[in-house]
């Protein structure tokens, strides 16, 4: 698979319908947007109209939730065709989805389900990423998910598994800072081990989000502001990886745009403290043109 590493876009937000008007009527300090691919697999109306307006003004990346790359069910070619159609419209900087599975036997559980970290699963995922990349004609970006259980049969750590997928399948990684924090708490590993365990040259995007603490475990709900511990880990990630396109991900209990933009400013200020002017992304410059 050919193609340079995608550019550093700066500081973006997940596009949510509640914010369409405020974004298009104003000039919020947002460098780029991530859109949920499945939300635009529709025939017409407001969703596609708004998508087109956003794409005219901002760099956009696509983020899917149902590729089900690790599923043992056959690849869903109708879904991939729909994904490719949205991509032709958006011309995204990259297309991401999750390193997980979402169902078998024609069922979609609408959840990001965990994978055992085995050689068998690794070979399976690498083979499927190759097929998807060939079909899309571009590299895929895969995100580590939050998980609540570990499998007895796992033969390696999550970061070893993620890294091997990226190397063998030649794909990019979306480093979800919050998901690593959540999974590290749930499974008792060190976030630093994960941070230093993945190849730096593969990471093209950060997700930063909030979660729900249930004392014995953390659930990745994306319905709260980002907590201090996740901000601390974000600072470490920026220090380690350098400038990486950063995004605040809020999926539920969605606050007014200004509140999410304030969180984005916080991410920007952390990156600025660590990186200086290197934290000013290309996306900001493109959006301003």
């Amino acid at each position, binding site marked *: 698979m050919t193609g340079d590493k995608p550019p550093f876009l700066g500081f973006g937000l997940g596009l949510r319908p509640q914010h369409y008007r405020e974004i298009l009527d104003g000039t919020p300090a947002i460098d780029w947007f991530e859109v949920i691919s*499945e939300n635009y*697999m*529709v025939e017409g*109306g407001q969703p596609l109209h708004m998508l087109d307006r956003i794409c005219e003004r901002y760099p956009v990346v696509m983020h899917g939730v149902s590729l089900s790359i690790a599923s*043992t069910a056959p690849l869903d070619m109708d*879904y991939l065709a729909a994904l490719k159609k949205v991509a032709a419209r958006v011309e995204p900087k990259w297309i991401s989805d999750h390193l997980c599975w979402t169902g*078998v036997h024609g*069922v979609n559980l*609408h959840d990001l389900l965990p994978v055992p970290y085995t050689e068998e699963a690794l070979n399976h995922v690498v083979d499927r990423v190759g097929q998807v990349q060939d079909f899309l004609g571009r590299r895929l970006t895969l995100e580590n998910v939050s998980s609540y259980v570990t*499998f007895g049969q796992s033969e390696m750590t999550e970061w070893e598994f993620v890294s091997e997928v990226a190397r063998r399948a030649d794909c990019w990684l979306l480093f979800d800072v919050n998901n690593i924090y959540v999974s590290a708490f749930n499974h008792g590993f060190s976030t630093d081990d994960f941070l230093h365990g993945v190849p730096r040259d593969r990471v093209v995007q950060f997700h930063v989000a909030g979660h729900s603490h249930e004392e014995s475990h953390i659930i990745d709900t994306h319905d709260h502001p980002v907590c201090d511990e996740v901000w601390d880990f974000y600072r470490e990630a920026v220090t380690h990886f350098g400038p990486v396109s950063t995004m605040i991900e809020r999926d539920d209990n969605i606050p007014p745009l200004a509140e999410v933009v304030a969180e984005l400013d916080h991410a920007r200020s952390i990156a600025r403290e660590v990186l200086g002017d290197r934290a000013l992304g290309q996306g900001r410059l493109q959006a301003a043109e």
Partner: protein
Amino acid sequence: MKSLRELQESFQRGILAGDDAVLAEVKDSDKEKREVLFGVYRNAYVARLAEILAEDYEQVHAYLGDDRFARLATAYIAANPSDQRSARWFGRHFPAFVEQNETYAKRPEVAELAALEKALADAFDGPNAEPLRIEELAALPPEVWPWLVFQPHPTARRLTFATNAADIWCALKEETAPPKPKTLPEPQAVVVWRQDFMARFRLLSPEEAMMWGEAAKEVRFGVLCEMVATFAGEDGAELRAASYLKGWVDTGTLAGCRTEPPPARPDRSQLR
């Protein structure tokens, strides 16, 4: 060791059917038992789909209240595992499910309310088409009018309600107390479509509903006028038909029109 396929099948049965066999494949954490940790997936599955249904069927939810809606949603989720990649389509069988549900057999307004919400959602992100403009019609010479056939907007759908579900929807939308459900003396035709970016619906009188139904079958305007005359009397029939047509154009319910050529006159030289 289970293969990846077997493991995923077992995991899915654990979520969908409450089968605990999968617990042998996962571990306790330092802080929590595996039953609780796997329970996060079980709970999330039902909770997420119930939330999707509550968003898609907002007025049914408001009408039934939290508890009754939750019971109905749980029954739907159990009977309809999602087979779609996008959650947008998960609730598409909900109106039919409610209609066939024993509890709601005697409350047909609930299934009709659901059908209206589904039709509005389908219109909202249905196919695009430029609406037919009044200027386009006005520019046509009078002699072609009898030969005009119309194309409904691709989002337009006609529903027929036996109850006052449309009134109930309107009251709920305004966050006022809904009227008592009742069976109407005559079925009520409703047309649902998208104008600009807004999904809308209108109630049609029996005469307008008849004309809409025929127009959607590409019956030409001259014949539509005759049908209107037959339906409720010749007096002012053309005016009534023209006024329904104007209403459709003003509200963007039509996407176009074309002239159906009159049948060619037989060539008399060929006749014996």
